C-alpha cells in the first residue's frame, strides 16, 4: 500500500485532525486503547485514501468527503420500532448507547464505553490493512456502542436489533457481537437518522462460534445529508453459518465494507445485497472474503438499481488461501442502470492460491429487458407500472431467498417504502 503523503491537507482532513485534539480528553480508553487511537490518527494524518489506492479506486474519499460536521448533534431522538416485530432493541442515539440494558436470557450486553475504559477490546481495534481508512477513523474517535455476548448453545427466540440513530453531527460507533458455539441468532443492524449533515462511522465485529447459525441484516436508510462509513467484519468458525443481508437505501456518501474470514472447516457464508440508489448520491459496497481453511463455501448475490444521478460501486474480492482446498465460492453482481446520468462500476476479483477449488463470478450491467416490458404491456399494464414491477421483481428475488418468512415480509415493507418515494 502506498498512502502517499498528500501535498496539502483538505478541509475535511484538517477538521478531523483538529477534532481529535479537542475530543481526546473526552474519549474513553486505557493506555492500550489510547495508543491505538494515536496510531489511527497518524494514519489519517497521512491523508484520506484517493483513487490511487486500489481498494478506493471508485470512491475517492479524499475528494468526496468535502465537509466534516461538528460533533454537536440535533435533538436526541428516540429508539424506533424494530424492523422485526418483538425484537429486543439496543439503541445508540447520537453516538451514545442506552443506559438501561435489556435482560435477555443467555445474552450478556455491555456498553462499549466500559469495554474501552477497561481496555479489554483494545486488540480488536487494529486496522485490517493500510488502506483501512474506516477502521482508522472509527478507532480514533469511537466512544460507545454495544458488546453483545450470546452464550454457547443459546437459541434466541426473538431477534436483537442494534439501532444506530443520528440526528446530524458526528458519531463513531462500534458494535461487537460474539455468538457462542451452537447458538442461533437473528440480528438486525439498523443505520438511520434524520436532519442535518452527518458523518457516521460504524464498525460491527462478529465472531460466529463453531456450529453456530447467524442471520445478520444491515438496513441502511440514512437521510441524503449523511455520510455513512461502515464496516462489517466477521469470523466464521467450524461448521458455522452466516447469512448477511445488506440493504442500502439512503445516504449521500456511503461506503459499506464487508470483511469476512472463514476460520473453521465447513464454514458457510452467504451475502445477499440490494443497493437502491437515487438522487445525487454515491454508494460503495466493498467485500473482502478470505477462504482461509479447507472445505468452506460461500455465495454472494448483489442486485443494484441505479436511478437519477446516483453512482454505485461494488467491489468483491474472494481470496482463497494456499491450503484452502475444496473451496466453493460463487459471486454474482447484477445491475439495472435506469438513467443516463447514473453510473455503476463493478470489480469482482478472484485471488486463488489453491488448485482444488471451484470459484466463479459473474457480473452484468444492463437496462430493463424490452421483451419483458413488452410482455407486461401487451397485457394492458401501462409502461410505468410495468417498469416498476420488473425492477421490484429484480431485487425482490434476493429477498425471497431468505428462508425466514418474517424477515422476507419485513424487508418487502422496506422495499415498498423506497419504491413509493423513488419509484
Amino acid at each position, binding site marked *: 500500500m502506498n498512502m502517499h503523503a498528500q501535498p496539502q491537507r483538505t478541509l475535511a482532513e484538517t477538521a478531523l485532525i483538529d477534532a481529535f485534539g479537542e475530543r481526546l480528553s473526552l474519549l474513553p480508553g486505557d493506555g492500550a486503547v489510547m495508543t491505538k487511537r494515536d496510531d489511527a490518527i497518524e494514519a489519517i494524518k497521512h491523508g484520506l485514501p484517493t483513487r490511487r489506492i486500489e481498494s478506493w479506486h471508485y470512491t475517492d474519499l479524499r475528494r468526496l468527503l468535502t465537509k466534516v460536521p461538528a460533533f454537536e448533534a440535533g435533538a436526541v431522538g428516540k429508539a424506533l420500532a424494530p424492523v422485526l416485530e418483538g425484537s429486543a432493541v439496543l439503541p445508540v442515539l447520537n453516538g451514545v448507547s442506552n443506559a438501561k440494558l435489556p435482560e435477555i436470557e443467555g445474552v450478556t450486553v455491555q456498553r462499549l464505553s466500559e469495554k474501552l475504559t477497561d481496555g479489554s477490546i483494545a486488540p480488536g481495534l487494529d486496522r485490517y490493512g493500510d488502506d483501512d481508512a474506516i477502521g482508522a477513523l472509527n478507532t480514533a474517535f469511537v466512544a460507545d456502542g454495544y458488546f453483545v455476548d450470546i452464550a454457547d448453545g443459546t437459541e434466541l427466540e426473538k431477534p436483537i436489533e442494534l439501532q444506530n440513530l443520528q440526528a446530524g453531527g458526528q458519531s463513531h460507533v462500534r458494535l461487537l457481537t460474539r455468538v457462542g458455539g451452537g447458538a442461533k441468532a437473528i440480528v438486525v443492524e439498523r443505520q438511520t437518522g434524520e436532519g442535518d449533515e452527518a458523518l457516521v462511522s460504524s464498525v460491527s465485529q462478529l465472531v460466529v462460534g463453531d456450529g453456530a447459525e447467524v442471520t445478520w441484516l444491515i438496513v441502511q436508510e440514512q437521510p441524503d445529508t449523511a455520510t455513512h462509513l461502515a464496516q462489517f467484519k466477521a469470523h466464521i468458525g467450524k461448521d458455522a453459518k452466516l447469512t448477511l443481508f445488506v440493504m442500502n437505501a439512503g445516504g449521500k456518501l456511503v461506503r459499506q465494507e464487508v470483511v469476512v474470514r472463514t476460520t473453521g472447516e465447513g464454514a458457510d457464508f452467504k451475502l445477499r445485497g440490494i443497493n437502491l440508489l437515487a438522487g445525487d448520491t454515491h454508494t460503495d459496497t466493498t467485500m473482502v472474503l478470505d477462504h482461509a481453511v479447507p472445505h468452506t463455501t460461500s455465495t454472494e448475490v448483489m442486485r443494484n438499481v441505479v436511478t437519477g444521478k446516483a453512482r454505485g460501486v461494488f467491489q468483491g474480492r474472494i481470496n482463497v488461501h494456499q491450503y484452502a482446498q475444496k473451496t466453493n465460492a460463487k459471486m454474482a453482481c447484477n445491475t439495472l442502470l435506469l438513467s443516463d446520468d447514473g453510473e455503476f462500476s463493478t470489480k*469482482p476479483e478472484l485471488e486463488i492460491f489453491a488448485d482444488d477449488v471451484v470459484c466463479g*463470478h459473474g457480473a452484468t450491467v444492463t437496462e430493463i429487458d424490452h421483451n419483458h416490458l413488452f410482455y407486461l404491456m401487451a397485457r394492458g399494464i401501462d409502461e410505468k407500472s410495468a417498469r416498476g414491477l420488473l425492477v421490484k421483481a429484480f431485487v425482490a428475488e434476493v429477498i425471497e431467498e431468505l428462508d425466514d418468512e418474517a424477515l422476507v415480509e419485513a424487508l418487502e415493507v422496506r422495499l415498498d417504502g423506497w419504491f413509493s418515494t423513488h419509484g
Partner: protein
Amino acid sequence: MPAVQETIDRVRKIDVDQYKYGFQTEIEMDKAPKGLSEDIIRFISSKKDEPDWMLEWRLEAYRRWVTLEEPTWARVHYPKINFQDIHYYAAPKSTPGPKSLSEVDPELLKVYEKLGIPLKEQEILAGVQKTVTADEEAEIGDNVYKSGRVAVDAVFDSVSVVTTFKEELAKAGVIFCSISEAIREHPELVKKYLGSVVPTSDNFYATMNSAVFTDGSFVFVPKGVRCPMELSTYFRINEKNTGQFERTLIIAEEGAYVSYLEGCTAPQRDENQLHAAVVELIALDDAEIKYSTVQNWYPGDAEGKGGIYNFVTKRGDCRGDRSKISWTQVETGSAITWKYPSCILRGDDSSGEFYSIAVSNGYQQVDSGTKMIHLGKNTSSRIISKGIAAGFSQNTYRGQVSAHRKAANARNFTNCDSLLIGDQCGAHTVPYMEAKNATAKFEHEATTSKISEDQKFYVMQRGIPEEEAIALIVNGFVKDVIQQLPMEFAVEAQKLIGISLEGSVG
C-alpha cells in the same frame, strides 16, 4: 494435489531443458555504453540517421520519463530495475543496411534458421522445388510458416536486419519496413500517427520506449487494399545486458485489411533482461486489423533465475466508423509479463476483440488483460481470456471495460477462465466494469478450477495416458482462442502450450 515433490522435480527438469531457443549467438556487436541519458538518446538517434524532429520527440519523452515513477499496481514482484545498467542500443556490426539476403551476416541467418523463421523468400518466390530428405522434412515440419507466404521483418536486438517480400507488397501499395526506415522514407506518415494512440506521456514504460526505441515494424495499408499476405515480425534479444525497445506502428486506411503476426525469443541468461515495447494500431473507417502474438521470451530457469521482463504497452484505436481491431495473444514466455493490449472504440459501430491464452509455469508471473474503452455509438467488444497456471507461477487477468456517457448501446461480453495445475501456483482475476450509460449492456463471467477428476477419468478410460489426457483437456480449454489464430500460428501455439505445461502434472 498430491505428488507435489514429483511435480516440482519435473517442472525443474523441463524449465532447464525445454526452452529450445535458449542458445546465444556470437556476433560482433555495435553497442551504446550502458545507461540512459540525453547523450545516449542523441547517440541512438544519430546511429539511425534520424531527422531533428524525431530527436526532439525522443528528448521530450526522456525529460518526462525522468519525472515518472515505476508503476507498482500490477501483481508482479521483482527486484528494482537499475535502468542505468542496461545497454539501450546493440546492433550486429556487419549490417549497414543490407540490400539483399546475401549481404546479411550468415551467422545471423543461421539464428533465424534455427528459430524456424523463413527469410529465404527468393526460393519460395522462384518456386524452386528442392528434393527434401527425411531429415529435412522433419526440420521443415518444425517450420510452421512453410505452408503460407508470410512477409517477415526480423529484428535482432536493436535493429531490423531484414524485411522480406517488400517489393511484392509495394506493388499492392502496402508499406512494410522497419520503423527506422519509415522515419527516413515516410516522415509525413510517421509524424501524423506516431504517438497518436500511445502518447509519450502514457505510462512509465511507454514514455521510456518513446525516448529510446531502436527499431520495430511499420505497416501502412492504403485505402481499400486488402494486404495480400500475412505480415510478421520476429524479435530476438541476443546480446547480454541489453534491453529491447521496439516500436510498432500499423495503419489501416479506409476499408483496408491487414493481419500481422509477432513472435519473440531470447537466449537463456542468468540476468533478467528488459523488453519494453509499444505497439500502436490505427484503423480508419471500415478498416480491420488483426494482430496476433506468440510470445515466447526466455522465462527463467527452474529457480526463477533470469528471464525477460516483458513490460509492453499495446493499444489499438478504432478511429473510423465500422472499424475493427482484434488482438490474439498466446503468452508462454517471459519471467514477468505486464501487458494489456487494448482497444479504443472511438468510431461508431466499431468493434474490438481480445483473445488470450496465458500459460505460466516455474516462477513466471503474468499480469495481463485488456481494456475496452467504448466511446462511439453501437460499439461492441468481446474478451475471451484463458489463464493456465502451473508450478510456482502467478497468473493474473486484469481487464477494464468502460462505456462513456455518449456510448449508446455499447455491448461487451467477457469470459475469463483460469485453470490451476498444482497447489503452489495462483490464478487471479481482476476485472473492472464501468458503465455510464443506461443502454450499455455488459456481461462478465469468470471461473477458476482445476481439471476435474471426472474429465481426466473419462479420457484416460479410453486408454490415453495421464499426461496426454491433460494436454487434450487443456487444448479443449483454450480452443476458443486457438481458433482465432492464423493457421500457421495455431500449430505453433498448440505445441508451445504442450511444452510449457509438460511435467507440471503431479
